[in-house]
């Protein structure tokens, strides 16, 4: 599936998007933490830390590590604080 990184997660990773394989959100986050050591700031085991959030396909926000993902999904990782 496609992972899109926005804002600070993009800064930390140094890329805007990448392809990963995972069946659940928790697996995806674990894989991201392994791929990008700097994501320790964002991810604790299989969950995002409170300052960050995940969105599925640009539609709904998700947080449960057990959330099922499919190959055609696009998962966005972004800052939770949208203050302007």
């Amino acid at each position: 599936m496609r992972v899109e990184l926005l804002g600070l997660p993009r800064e930390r990773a140094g890329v805007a998007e990448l392809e990963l394989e995972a069946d659940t959100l928790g697996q995806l986050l674990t894989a991201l933490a392994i791929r990008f050591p700097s994501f320790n700031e964002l991810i604790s085991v299989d969950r995002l830390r409170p300052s960050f959030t995940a969105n599925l396909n640009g539609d709904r926000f998700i947080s449960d590590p057990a959330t099922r993902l499919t190959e055609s999904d696009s998962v966005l990782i972004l800052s939770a604080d949208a203050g302007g």
Partner: protein
Amino acid sequence: MPFGYHGCYLRIDVSDGSVDRIPIPETVLRQFLGGSGLGVWLLLQEGDPAADALAPASPLVFAFSPLVGSPLTTSAKFAVVSKSPLTNRINDSLASSGFAIAGKRCGCDAIVIVGRAAAPSALIIDDGRVSLHIVEHLRGASCQITEAAVKERLGAGYQVASIGPAGENAVRYATISHDGRHAGRGGSGAVLGSKNVKAIAVRGTQRCEWAHPRELTEISRDLSKKSFGPATAKYRELGTAANLLTFNRLGALPTRNFQSGTFDEAVSISPEEIRTTHSRTRASCVACTIGCEHIYGIGAEPGVRLEYESLFALGSLCGVSDPDAVLRASRLCDELGIDTISAGGTIAFAMECVQRGWLDESWLTFGSGDAMLRAIDLVGRREGVGDLLAEGSRRAADVIGHDSIAFAPQVKGLEIPGYEPRALQTMALGFAVGARGADHNRSGAYEVDFSDKVDRRHATLEAVRYAIETEDKAALMDSLILCKFLRGVFADFYAESADMLQQVTGWDATADELRETARRIVGIKRRFNLMAGWTRDEDTLPPRFLDTPLPSDPAAAINRQQLEALVAEYHRQRGW
């Protein structure tokens, strides 16, 4: 009198230069704290909510807070409170930095200004002694030139707040500027201009003592440490402008006067792109450890502080993709003393009217940076079509007709910030019920939309309590006063706020007390509005948002019945 306060306010009539030092009962301070809360209370004491906002008798309040001058990070803030000439409802705008500290050291918790000076004047408050200096030579000067000139004339130690040409010309969304920042929304600059006051300079030596200095120092150190963490990293490293690409990806970036939620050319004005071609430096307010300000250079020209709200309003909302045009427009607004959100909203509205053939200004087209810059300049000087646009989108729509009010991007007359209501529907409710109109600083309901608590494109009644929670929290932060960018660092906001207040004032404040205080402050704003003529049908959104799904995302739709149900539930839960 509790620690942390002087227990009085200065009432200055600039018509004759008279000054009264008026006590504030401790019960009032405890009930309304400072900033927005105390400011609205004083406004009700001193003025008539039904009077014209620009009448000499209508007060303008600068309110400080118990935390001002303390070592708590981000506490150097002040609220400017008045009736808004744009909305005819309550207006409380906040700004930061040295003016708050120096103003409080004048020995007062607030400054109330009434009357009208005979000539353009600078109001000087030196340790509580008040004088008026005629500054005819500064007529038409920018905010920055005015501030520098007054400082140079008075010498060291003064902090200056000023208005630009827009405030002098009664642009209904003129700002009050200090140290490069603005009490931005709702037209407080026009209110100060109506008093013929071009600048206020404050200097003082009177410090408040803290009830528990050692404990306060410990709390302050801990808060500063937390402010360096991940909860504020976005603001520190990228600034608020980082919202742009995120909102665009979510289809929530207002574009071409809310005709779309995505802007094809968003990347070109994103901070990620601009920083590759423009120099960037960082700055912060006095007494702030976050440092959210990102200042971009344009060649040899002076740098421009760029925030998301300015970026969306002067960029995607007007269809402008030239980053230099957006940066220059932001700087021009700063110089003239104009709220960038209302400027962008009103100009984008005019651009759509031109597009429809309802406004005969063929040069004013979406996408033209030159047109936007020209329009801002005309607004500041109230010349040509600028005289109409200086009135804001609601009044402009009344003049233009053709049912253009249906897409004037405002609530209660205040232009909508950069959060597309159809794509962020808890925020839509926050906008609809906001006491000062569509506002992202008095309602942080977008936080809820950015979570799995709600479906952001299909709000249910469950969203209402969340919207209320964010509104209450904002009311408390605006009265303590603390920067909202700190909100993510608190594990228990009310308990930690109570702890701060205890150490500063000596009160036995509790989390529950502060929850009640927050609701009281929201309530007193409503009371002002009721006295000013508010009716329930004002708590809505313009027809565009209720009649038409977001064209770029048809799933993003909120109809009139849905919004009315949310508003009714909001009123029910508020007990109104």
